[in-house]
């Protein structure tokens, strides 16, 4: 018998590792996933980094709004995407997405192994971190990522207390978000 850890990464403390969630199958699975996703995205607090932007030939500091933007994955393997982006004013979302710090996707995993892992009569839902940045030995904006993942799992568990959750980090501790006195961005 193959163990779960051989089939699926059990890195419970990694904010990058995939999460596999099994919820009791209903006709509204896609609607439920969409609602949980949008709630988790909006729940992540917004911060205000100051980043330099080009104005003519000179660069100037400009306050951005760092928040989670959701979207639909057109023609891809994922139902919905969520990106932590540095939003500049009222620009279109497509522009903000170019300044993404991390991106997470959700999909219904139709494969036999996922179904086997979550058990019968459950829909296997995979949450994958599809984009991320590392600097100085750490994941950038890990707090927002951890919080988003936590809210996604908490949302499914609220709707289905019998939900099965396997894989990466999905808990939350308040002391993970300590505030910086100065802007930690090292970008020029």
């Amino acid at each position, binding site marked *: 018998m193959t163990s779960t850890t*051989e*089939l*699926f990464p059990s*890195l419970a*403390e*990694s*904010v*990058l*590792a995939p999460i596999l969630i099994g919820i009791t199958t209903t006709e509204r699975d896609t609607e*439920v996933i969409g*609602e949980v996703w*949008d*709630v*988790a995205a*909006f*729940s992540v*607090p*917004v*911060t*205000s980094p100051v980043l330099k*932007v080009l104005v003519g030939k000179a660069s100037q500091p400009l306050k951005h*709004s*760092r928040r989670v933007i959701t979207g639909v994955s057109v023609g891809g*393997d994922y139902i919905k995407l969520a990106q932590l982006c540095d939003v500049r004013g009222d620009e279109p979302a497509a522009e903000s997405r170019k300044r993404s710090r991390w991106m997470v996707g959700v999909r219904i995993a139709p*494969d*036999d*192994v*996922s179904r086997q892992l979550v058990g019968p009569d459950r829909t296997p839902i995979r949450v994958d971190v*599809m*984009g*991320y*940045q*590392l*600097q*100085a*030995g*750490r994941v*950038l904006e*890990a*707090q*927002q990522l951890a*919080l988003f993942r936590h809210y996604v799992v*908490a949302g*499914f*568990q*609220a*709707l289905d207390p019998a939900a099965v959750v396997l894989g990466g*980090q999905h808990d*939350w*501790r*308040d002391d993970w*978000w*300590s*505030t*910086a*006195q100065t802007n*930690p961005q*090292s*970008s*020029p």
Partner: protein
Amino acid sequence: MGISNRIATKIRTAAKTETVPLPRPYLDTGAVVAAAIVRAAASTIGQLKLGSSTFRGQDVLGIREARSTYLSTVKVSQRGLVGWSVSLGVLTVSGWTADWMVNVVVEDSPVGATVNVTTPATLTRDGTLVNKSAHGELRDLVLSGLRAGKLPAGTAELAVSKAGLAAEELEPFYALIPAQTLRTKLPVAEVHATLALVPFPVADRQPDRLRWQLGTAGALADRFAHARITDQGDVRTIELECPPQPTGSAVLDGLVARRAGALFQSVQRTIYRLDRDIEITSEPIIRQRPTAGV
């Protein structure tokens, strides 16, 4: 010197294609293993203390390059379930400037999986690839991991993850917690059935009142928002409120405010799906901004 450097770079960045023993079927298990191998390799490179320069062009003495060198960033993006791109560089005012980028693409076929590793973007100085050791190490880690065909130890991934959570983050925006009133023609029973789709744990459910827990961990587990449902004959009103309890911590107050806002939005969406004529009125509760960092 320049010519031999260029030849070495060409060899170093040459495309490599080989069959790898990833678990099959690929989409069932192989893709999960391949993604873990790329994460492990990128995390290992992400732990190196590297510098990348925003300067491009001739710089004989290297002064301008040194002046414009910043801590390198490793950027990883996944393409579907078969491709990954790992890039080392730095973010500038003009966008991302890469020292190099490595693409990893796995092709699945009935006879097995094949990996193709390429280096589509490179920056060289005097013919030598910038941060060439990191490039070589990443390529080797990806290829050796895929050749082993099993989940890696995950040590580097855990280290970068824990370090990320231990780092300081910016203070969130101060946000107001609004009180909202919704008016709907849905019967009370249908209002309750619809609100069951709001993804928050229910703390208390009464015929005229519903109380949600804003979270399941930390300070949010002790914070609640509620809905008062009143039947007014031809219309039902749903009054949503999250009583303000400033904690003195900008982060905790930010968490509560966003979470309450997300709950109210979710209630609106779920009711709106069945009643497009829903009326919404918001009355923001203005309160004193707590002292940051307390």
